[in-house]
Structure formats: C-alpha cells, structure tokens
C-alpha cells in the first residue's frame, strides 16, 4: 500500500504544483525519489509531529494541498489537538497519512501498533477517514484525497499486501462500499476494512466450503460511512459480519452497529471482529498478532457457521 500511495502521490504532484508532502522524518528509501523530483513540494519537518501538523495547516492556509506522512501513531495521536484545532476546525485540505496501520509493525511493540487511529480520527469533526485494504484501494484513496475538499485521514498498511481487487486502481465514490466477492446481497454479508478485507475473503472461502454463501464488501471509507448500504443489509440479511484490524471500539464495527441499531426494519444480527481494547504486551509479526487477538478467518468461519446453525434450528 505504501508504494501504491507514493506512486499515486507522485502522479498527483506532477499535475498539481500545490501538492506538498511533509514527512515527520520517516520514509527512508520510500520518499527519496519524490524528494529529489519535487524539491519545492517536499519538506522534512523533523521528528516533531506537533509542528508538522501545525505547519501543514499554515501551508494549507496559503494555498497548498498538504499530505503529512509518518508511521503508526506519530502523525495522529502525537499531534491530535493540532489536527483537531488547526486542520479540522479550519476545514483545510490536509491529508494525514499513517503507514503501518493495525499490527503492520507488530514486532516493534505497543508504541507502533496503530490500533485506535481510525476511532480517534473518525471522532474529529469534518474529518474524512479512509482505511483501504489493498494497494488498489490505497491508490484510489490517495487519488481521491488529492482533490477532495477539507481534511482527510489515510490509513495505510505497510507493503506487500495481497492484491484483493482484479484492477490496479478501483473506482471509489466518497463514503461508498465496494462489492468484492460473492453475490451482491446474501443472507450473510461480510464487510472488511482497515486492512482486514483479506480475512473476510479468506473466511468466505471457508464458508462456501461449508455450504454458506456470503456476500463480501469492502469499506475503504469509515467516515463518511455507507449508511444506506448497511441499512439494506440490516433489512435483507440475517447476519452482518464486520472484520477490521483495528480496535473493536470506534471503527468499522461500531459504525455498522450504530446503523443497524437505528434501522427500523432490522432483521440482521451483527457480529464484529476487531482488536479487543486492551494493551498487548507481547510482540510478533502481523499474522501472529492477529491470531493472538482472535482475528482469524477460521474463527470468523466457526462463529458464523455456529450462528447459522442456531438460526437454522429455530426456523
């Protein structure tokens, strides 16, 4: 996702001289070409995220379209108030980019686990939150925020994510989900976001083998959220399953739960898979960390089939 972001940003910078990339002294080997090619559109703010966010606001006030870039929680939590007061309150075209969402930097420890970022950014007034799950979505989200009004948060994984869409760049519309696999609607619907669409797709493969047909959708947008689509699922399906590599609190699962709970013609039950909101004191690679917190396709499969069995027994 990181390389897809940089390549798309390079294309944007070429077309639009107001585009500016500000890094918090990270991106070794990743931003070098951009920096060489567009010296007037690149700035290293140093290891100083509060200043980075504040000066991004200042640059944007003077007509620049700014991307701030760092890893994990540094560009978000470290300078949260600057993002809220300086960028969001003034509605400035600044995209805050974090590389290493979820457990992408799993071995580095708790400081580098970006597991509440979507909840926190999504709580800020006026903030658009994008959490793509593969390089094609990352490319589309980058392109979108390059011309969108107001502030955005773009949560990326790291690199080497599996390609989940057949095209290199998917077509996205603000706040809309993307249909990815299976029928468009089914009794069981799986929605993936925050880097975990791969788990939803893996789970649907297991479910198919068990005779359960499910629809798979991707939600690269968390804010604004595809309420209309979820309302449809709430009425027409029995089970909506959300899967995200993010805290259970405040991300995709919470948004879905809110919409489903408010749906008057609600039929669907909601099953949310995410990261429990407790500190993780151990480290491991992304796969290991997912397994530790129960974020696996096998667990999704087991719980969905168990629920289907319960529903079947009641019919």
């Amino acid at each position: 996702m990181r390389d897809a972001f940089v390549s798309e940003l390079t294309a944007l910078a070429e077309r639009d001289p107001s585009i500016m990339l500000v890094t918090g002294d990270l991106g070794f080997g990743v931003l070098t070409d951009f920096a060489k090619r567009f010296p007037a559109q690149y700035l290293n703010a140093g290891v100083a995220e509060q200043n980075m966010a504040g000066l991004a606001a200042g640059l944007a006030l003077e007509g620049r379209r700014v991307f701030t870039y760092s890893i994990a929680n540094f560009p978000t939590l470290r300078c949260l108030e600057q993002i809220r007061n300086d960028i969001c309150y003034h509605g400035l075209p600044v995209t805050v980019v974090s590389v290493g969402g979820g457990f992408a930097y799993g071995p580095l420890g708790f400081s580098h686990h970006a597991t509440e970022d979507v909840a926190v950014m999504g709580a800020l007034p006026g903030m658009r939150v994008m959490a793509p799950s593969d390089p094609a979505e990352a490319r589309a989200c980058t392109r979108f925020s390059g011309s969108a009004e107001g502030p955005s948060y773009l949560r990326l994984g790291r690199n080497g994510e599996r390609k989940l869409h057949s095209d290199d760049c998917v077509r996205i519309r603000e706040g809309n989900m993307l249909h990815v696999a299976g029928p468009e609607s089914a009794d069981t619907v799986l929605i993936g976001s925050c880097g975990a669409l791969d788990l939803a797709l893996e789970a649907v493969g297991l479910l198919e083998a068990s005779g359960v047909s499910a629809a798979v959708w991707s939600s690269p947008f968390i804010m604004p959220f595809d309420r209309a689509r979820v309302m449809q699922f709430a009425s027409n399906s029995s089970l909506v399953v959300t899967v995200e590599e993010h805290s259970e609190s405040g991300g995709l699962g919470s948004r879905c739960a809110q919409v489903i709970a408010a749906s008057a013609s609600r039929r669907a039950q909601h099953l949310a898979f995410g990261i429990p909101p407790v500190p993780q004191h151990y480290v491991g690679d992304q796969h290991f960390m997912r397994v530790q917190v129960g974020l696996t396709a096998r667990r999704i499969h087991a719980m969905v089939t168990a629920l289907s069995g319960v529903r079947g027994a009641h019919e």
Partner: protein
Amino acid sequence: MRECHLSPSQLAQRIRLHAVRMTSKGRTSHVGSVLSCADILATLYGRVMTVRAVEPRWDGRDRFIMSKGHAGAGVYATLAELGFFPIERLEEHCQNGSVLCGHIAAHGVPGVEFSTGSLGHGLPVAAGMAYALKVRGSSSRTFVLLSDGELDEGSNWEAILFAAHHRLSGLCGIVDYNKIQSLATVADTLGLEPLAEKFRAFGWTVRECDGHDHAAIEVAMQSSSESGPVMVIAHTVKGRGVKFMEHSVLWHYRSPQGEELAAAIAELEAAGHA
C-alpha cells in the same frame, strides 16, 4: 498601506476600553492579558502591518496570528477600530450564538487569520505560512503573538527549530512577556530566563523592548537584515492601564463588574485625555 487613522496611543486606549467593556458584558476572563498586549496590537496594526480592511484576504497583506487566543478580545477590538467590521459587533462578544468567541476564532470574523485557544498552536502555523510565502517569493510578513506562559508548550520549540533551520526571515514572533501566567509568576512556575539567550541559541534574531513603548515596539518589529526569523521580547505589565489590575493574577480570571468596571473605564478615559 496604513489603514489606521489613529495613533498607536489612541488605538491602544480604545482597545483597552473595548476590552474592559467586552469582558464585563461577556462575563469572561483574561482582561489582564488583553491590557498587557494592547500596545503591541496597536503598534502592529497601526504602524507595522500592511492590511486592507475592505479586502481582508488580500494576498499582499501581512499575516497575524494571535497565538495567545485567550486575549482575542484585543484583536477583535483592533480589527473593529480599523474597519474590518462594525464596532457595534463587539457587543456580541461571548454572547449566545455569537462567532466572537472568547478564544479568538476566524470563522465569520473578517481579519482574523486563524483560530486559536489552546496554547502552543500559533507558532507552528505561522511558520507554515511564512514557509509557503517565502517559497512563492512573497514579501508579506507573518507575525505571531505569544504569551510567556505559552512558551511552556513544547510545540513552540519544535517550530522555533524549524523556523531557524529554514531561515524564515518573513516570520516575526512577539512574546508578551508580562511575567505572570495562569497560577503564579513565570519565574515561580517554569522559569524562562535567560529567554533572549535561548532564542539566540536557536538561531533567531532577538530584540527586547518595552512592550508599552510604541516607538520601541515598532523598531523592534522591523525586518532583520540577517536571513532568519525575528523574536521580539516585549516586556509588559499584565493589566497595564488599570492600576488595580496591574501585576495581578486575579485579573487573568476576574471579569470587571459594577464599580470595578466604572473605575476601569474612568481611569482609561482619563489617561486618554492626558
């Protein structure tokens, strides 16, 4: 281009009168903070900055960010006196439904460049503006007014490093150094001295002045011949102009009412006729 037909002394006196009335009517804090920086604001807008009241977003303007946003009443008063909006609007300050917020806000208030209120935000933003202006070859300057207590915030020191590194000669910071912060004196809270040496060590041109002497403030705010940012340390008195408010932490919070308000107005009006 000077928009103001008042002398800095006249403008400062009007800012002070507005400030005591506004904080009284709005029943809000920080009158002492406004009185402290009234002469700085009057000199900035009356002598130093180039602005157009009829075209607040004119690209050739000098920029001003009020980082000590709690003294925003002083900026509203200044802008109203310069004709950015009607003076009567000052009556709205802190009233229900008003956009003249207690801590300075830009939305719906012509001439206010940026909203602040949480300390330590103004300098990074001003540095970003000054950087953008420098890159595009603009001669507009960016001024930012900081409180002394505000310098406790680490974000300032990030921006202080940045501005010096990038030789932002269009950036001019002003510290309203009244030596009193929220609960006690600066010296008793987190001492800043030697403040001028700190800024110099960070690569800034530093000028100290009496923050109530308009000519001295004006001289201190001139562009530097050196290629870097300028920090003006303006030595001020909190509550300046109303004797019973001077040097007092109390008037960081208290809103003048009744006889206090009358006494403050009488003293300020008498000073104006002197």
